[in-house]
């Protein structure tokens, strides 16, 4: 009985980790720009596919491939911001949402063109038998995903709270005019937020591909779930997004395990709607923070 529950839990934590990373990515951009980037999922997909390209197609060593992948995807984030976000400086909400959607379509088109529609795979970071814990099985790669996710969270937390650059980025979303007045280069902060978000997504993609494979159109599904995670934790609250991601993953798994696997995808959405309707600031946000935002 317990090992059953544990197995469900572990399955939930595995997928939850990816949702967390996506949610975190959303938050970084949101924190700097008040925009929700609906192309976030594509960064994850690129992480996986580009990593395959460097490590399996070009046969480069593991660490080099990781670094190159991160650089490439970060660059894509940069280009996206410069070409499509920056020109729309004072546009309204609708336009912003639409342009990120359009970018996600273009990215998907490029990925489909270069990689085709097949799924891709590469070996897990460490090979070996799955580990048994109290009767439940956990793949080694899952531990890597968890470890990397937690490390990323830690680094992001440090970045935003302990470094000048991070604090400057937070200032931009709250009040760009005030930020400019104190000498923060808002435009550059926005650019940085996109690069950072892209890198985060890429890391998630690199880590999860050995478990779930990666194809060109996995983006939107990931984006919606990661999105729910960000809302659940309270838009703008990075810790909240991470916890939200894990909660969604675990609840999905438990629903599939104990109730009915057909409806498990609805769980994330229902919870998100419930939060939006009853506590829009999210589980960890506050009402005050809602009114401060531009959108």
């Amino acid at each position, binding site marked *: 009985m317990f090992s*059953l529950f544990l*197995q*469900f839990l*572990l*399955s*939930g934590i*595995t*997928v939850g980790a*990816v949702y967390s990373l996506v949610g975190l990515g959303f938050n970084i951009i949101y924190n700097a720009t008040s925009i929700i980037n609906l192309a976030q999922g594509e960064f994850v997909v690129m992480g996986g596919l580009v990593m395959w390209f460097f490590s399996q197609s070009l046969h480069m060593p593991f660490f080099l491939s990781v670094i190159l992948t991160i650089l490439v995807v970060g660059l894509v984030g940069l280009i996206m911001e410069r070409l499509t976000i920056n020109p729309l400086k004072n546009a309204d909400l609708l336009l912003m949402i639409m342009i990120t959607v359009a970018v996600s379509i273009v990215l998907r088109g490029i990925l*489909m063109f270069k990689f085709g*529609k*097949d*799924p891709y*795979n590469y070996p897990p970071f460490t090979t070996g038998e*799955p580990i048994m814990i109290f009767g439940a*099985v956990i*793949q080694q790669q899952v531990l890597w995903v968890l470890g990397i996710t937690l490390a990323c969270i830690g680094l992001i937390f440090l970045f935003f709270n302990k470094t000048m650059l991070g604090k400057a980025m937070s200032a931009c979303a709250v009040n760009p005019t005030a930020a400019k007045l104190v000498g923060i280069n808002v435009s550059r902060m926005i650019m940085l937020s996109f690069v950072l978000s892209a890198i985060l997504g890429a890391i998630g993609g690199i880590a*999860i591909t050995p*478990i*779930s*494979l990666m*194809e060109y159109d*996995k983006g939107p*599904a*990931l984006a919606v779930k990661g999105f729910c995670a960000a809302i659940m934790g309270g838009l703008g609250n990075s810790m909240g997004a991470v916890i939200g991601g894990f909660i969604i993953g675990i609840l999905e*798994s438990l629903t*599939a*395990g104990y109730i009915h*696997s*057909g409806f*498990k*995808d609805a769980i994330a959405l229902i919870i998100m709607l419930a939060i939006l309707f009853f506590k829009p600031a999210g589980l960890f946000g506050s009402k005050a923070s809602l009114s401060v935002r531009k959108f």
Partner: protein
Amino acid sequence: MKVKGKCILKVLVVSLMLFLVAKAGIAKEPYKIGAIFSVTGPASFLGEPEKNTVIMLADQINKAGGINGHPVEVIVEDDKSDEGQAVLAAKKLLDKDKVIAIIGPSITGSSMAVIPIVQGAKTPLVSVAAGAGITTPVNERYWVFKTAQYDVSAVIAIYKYMQKKGIKKVGIITITNAFGDQGRKALLELAPKYGITVVADERYGPKDADMTTQLTKIKAAGAQAVINWSVGPTQVIVTKNWHDLKLGIPLYQSHGWGSKKNLELAGPAAEDVIAPLGRLVVWDKLPDNHPQKSILKKYETDYKERYKTEPGTFGGHAYDAFMLVVDALKHVGPDKQKIRDYIENNIKNWPGISGIYNMSKEDHCGMDDTAFEMTIVKKGDWEILK
């Protein structure tokens, strides 16, 4: 002298013109065959090999001189895995391109949407989708045929084998799209006929990353075997999860398993996975006198040479559909009614990629569970199970 010169010139010009006219007359009218495939969208794993196959076949036929001298022109439209788009594609092929027959669509939904249109336009349709509703009730499907085995046939093949092995309790795990849904319905409906009880009925989405929860439940419910019904990456994920969990009960896959890519991606986890597959993937294990062997071999070799990847079982459906129409054209020429009649009446023991066809007035699909071979994966390749 000048008059003679002019005379010679006139003769030359007239000869040249006669020559050109004769040449134009020799170039025969192309036969236009339309095709609707889901080249993009969620069903693109079907549409892409299907499109590649018909283009390759058309080229091969034209290089060999066409059909009775007539070049064949295949016009492929993409329905983007959507019924509304399939309707538009069909109308374009019929109205603008004036095709003599339509091959496809790739999916059941699109096929169903297109049926009233081809019936109204009295044009033969050879679908490559699996749904039973496409060719039944056959008295309402006068113009409609299909070259994909019924999902039911694949299920029957599995259950017949399980009966032989004495398996009485199974757990099924299916994907929540049309492909998985058709399989699930067939699995649930046919189980009692073979003395089998379905003790667990689990589902997962097309983009899910982990199915250990569902597999664990299946084992806990007391299943003696797991049947997975999906195509795409989830087949591989289920296989890997099954392997890691060391469930101890055999894993059966659907006929969508028949792609080398799946074996590559799953690696050693695929060992001992059983599935009913079209003979395309095991042609080299067939006896030399098997009626399908030579076509299977040529198809796979040619496709690999041109597209650098294997065609997979779904490309084979398009192969059969196209060649049926070509065969009809060869024998009766570009007459829609005659083509339809030919396919219905003259296709007997006709070896194709997907199986050996026996079309008739009562059966516009022509295949049953004997189109499949039960296979098992051993050391990264398939072997035929006896």
